[in-house]
């Protein structure tokens, strides 16, 4: 049944592709316009919320915009600096000056706490990535690959749960896990075992910042690694089985070498995610409990510019922090496209348009 059908369709398809060059210019133009019509809503949103903000944040980073001289009028900010009075050929300077050049960046590099925040960021990204987003993810996917298929699926599905739990609820759960006696769950076990009570939030805030993020981050790598492990040809594993390899030898010499590509993908993708995401740190510690103790770079940008808790918002200075991340983000995103051969995915559509 299937064979004759495709035989019938082939000439039709050929006719279609032959017909294409024969279209008039008007038809082509109309087809183009239809295509742009379909793309318009997405295009507008992307321009409005990706491109304009990208330019805007570059601009904001060279201004001194803060609560004291707040305005949303971007053009007005520009004009106030370069307003030329053509009548007398003099420059009017009585309006507030906004553009301060690279002063924000100079201030950022001179900031007493910038090295600490930078180190915090690197430490946080490194630990979360190695121990959880890659390490734990690999452990879970290897473990679930070695058990009953349905049970493996069940465990992997459970790991999605933190990701779909609202950040506020998820962080509240962790706060109760680490709270002091009599409320804390770990401290309840400590008491039962006769161990001393520990104020984990005060003593080891980093551990919990990393745990809270890691337990969410692990599921991304887990899914990627699992699909990679499942696509390993069974022949390879059977061959190693016949050769009498142990489980660990199979993992070390068969599975892991084949996971090199997914590993690279997860490492690069998650590095960027961790570098820029701060939602859970904001909710769990907000950068505390000590002075900048768990503050990371992206959180600094947010706190300086948008956190209503600190009354004096410094949009200009915060933008300077954000610009660093935007630059890293753009460079890495373009690198992905090159490294992971996305060009092949972007190939021409196989079917010609009518």
């Amino acid at each position, binding site marked *: 049944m299937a064979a004759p059908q495709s035989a019938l369709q082939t000439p039709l398809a050929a006719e279609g592709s032959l017909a294409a060059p024969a279209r008039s210019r008007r038809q082509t133009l109309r087809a183009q316009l239809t*295509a742009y019509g379909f793309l318009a809503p997405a295009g507008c949103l992307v321009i409005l919320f990706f491109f304009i903000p990208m330019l805007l944040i570059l601009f904001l980073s060279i201004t001194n915009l803060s609560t004291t001289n707040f305005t949303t009028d971007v053009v007005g900010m520009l004009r106030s600096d370069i307003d030329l009075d053509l009548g007398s050929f003099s420059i009017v300077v009585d309006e507030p000056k906004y553009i301060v050049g690279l002063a924000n960046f100079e201030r950022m590099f001179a900031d007493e706490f910038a090295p600490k925040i930078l180190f915090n960021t690197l430490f946080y990204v490194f630990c979360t990535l190695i121990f959880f987003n890659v390490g734990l993810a690999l452990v879970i996917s290897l473990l679930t690959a070695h058990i009953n298929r349905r049970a493996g699926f069940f465990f992997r599905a459970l790991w999605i749960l933190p990701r779909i739990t609202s950040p506020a609820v998820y962080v509240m759960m962790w706060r109760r896990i680490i709270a002091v006696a009599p409320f804390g769950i770990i401290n309840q076990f400590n008491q039962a075992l006769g161990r001393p009570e520990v104020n984990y939030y005060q003593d080891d805030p980093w551990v919990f910042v990393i745990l809270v993020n890691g337990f969410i981050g692990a599921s991304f790598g887990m899914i990627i690694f699992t699909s990679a492990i499942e696509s390993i040809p069974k022949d390879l594993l059977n061959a190693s089985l016949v050769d009498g390899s142990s489980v660990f030898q199979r993992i070390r010499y068969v599975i892991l070498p084949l996971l090199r590509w997914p590993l690279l993908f997860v490492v690069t993708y998650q590095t960027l995610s961790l570098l820029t995401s701060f939602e859970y740190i904001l909710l769990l510690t907000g950068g505390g409990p000590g002075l900048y103790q768990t503050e990371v770079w992206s959180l600094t940008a947010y706190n300086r510019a948008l956190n209503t808790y600190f009354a004096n918002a410094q949009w200009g200075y915060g933008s300077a922090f954000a610009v660093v991340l935007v630059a890293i983000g753009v460079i890495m995103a373009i690198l992905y496209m090159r490294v992971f051969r996305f060009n092949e995915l972007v190939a021409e559509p196989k079917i010609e348009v009518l």
Partner: protein
Amino acid sequence: MTARLLSHKHEAISSEAETFERISTGELVFQAVFSALVTVMVLEVGVIVFRVLEPLIHSAPRLFGSTTTVDETFTRAIGNLLMLIAPFAAYAVAGIKMKPLAQYNRLRAIGAALLAGALVYVLVTMGQFVFQIGPFTERPSLQMSMVQTDEGILVEEVIAGGTADDAGIKAGDLITGIRRAEVTLSELTTAVNHSKAGDVIRLRVVRDGEEEQIPVEVSTAMEISLIPLVVGLLVALAVAVIAVFWPGGWTPYALLILIMLPLVLGYVWLLVATFSFRTEGIMPVNAEGNFGGWTLRNWEFLTREPTGSNPSIWTITLNTAVIAVSMMAIVLLVSSMAGYALSRMNFVGRKTFLSLTLILHGFPAVTLLIAIFFVLRNIGTIPVIGDYFGYNTRGGIALVMVAFELPLGVWLMKGFFDGIPWDIERSALIDGASRWRTFWEILLPQIRPGLLALGIFAFISGWGAYLIPQTYSIGTKTATLSVYINQLTSDTAPVNWNEIAAVGLFQMLPVFVIFIFAQEYLLNIYAGGTKGSS
């Protein structure tokens, strides 16, 4: 082939049996204890490695020219964790060594495992005693034993020469408070635990009917009580015996459950807390601190009348639903339209648009939050449109979230359209249907699974959204449930955690129902769809 392998294995077992007959139990136990101690050593070397790393990390900011230091480190926690699991690993190894023996002589294997487990326990405990760790950790103490009575805390015994003795407290005294505050024994214990050696606690003591305040300096002591030691021994023996009969196939399951333990505990707490008066750890307690106290009062927020500063929960739920549903609808429409154009049409700039989608998919959109604040502010100044899509409006929040999901949505939709055969659409176009009609009536029904997956994804991220609503709304007018929950937790008024837990569970319910029915879709989509979050 198989038969030969089996017979070979059989031979191996019987020769092994003979080997075990010759070896005495003592020698077996010695071997087991030896391997167990090697395990402990290896793990402790790990601890030492992490302890060595600690000062390195501690001083790392100095490499960046900073005078600040890192106070707490993750490496110390890993070291502590290794130290915690080392004894258990040792007991397990002792048991595992008896596995071959258990195949033909169970009783002897159990006996040997018990002996080896007990020996390892004694050695480990001696080690802990020498290094003053585990149950022998020094902790703040008043160096007297007390018991709770109706009148107050009765001092049963004072250690001679101890800090309480120095301060002049005698057996038979009745402690009623710290300074002016009344205390119970558990409160006093907590106060002592939280203080450092050298701190002074002023106890209000009643002696012979007269009240006086006695300052007692907190000292440290190694309080050795028998119960943890006995419990430890029993655990050691149990682990050793279980290890003997542990089927290899169970290990992955046990490990998976062990790794998930924090999450499981967290979710169990959430469930227990919502239905109880108060919780201590994950145990529900009543007002007196005993097990029990089940109540539905935490769910009263569902029927509470709105007051000035507290909006009704249903208003917030409606807000959240409006944001989540409208976001889902717009994401589906906009990204399927764009996906259709990219998959089916050839136009100038197609390749640019596609690679742009991919770059944006990799780009972390959260870094633009500050600038988007100004974009929304400026939209707000436009008449009419500004009232619905500007700063501090539901529409504005929804639009920003839609934009953040778009790169993923467009890419996914393009993939789904690519998988649909061209012929169905062709016949409709030949019959004279417009592109839009073909898209809307013919193709969209074909990619229903894709729409479902993306729709679920968008709804869940809209429903739980915290950062964007929090950043782009003032007050609770446009707040989502997540924002509301976080506001409750940071209230200055006394926080009723159990009620917040109930609100949290209430917020989770729809997502949880979707989760149960759509696990497979979710697992697939999250591989391509992690934006912004770690």
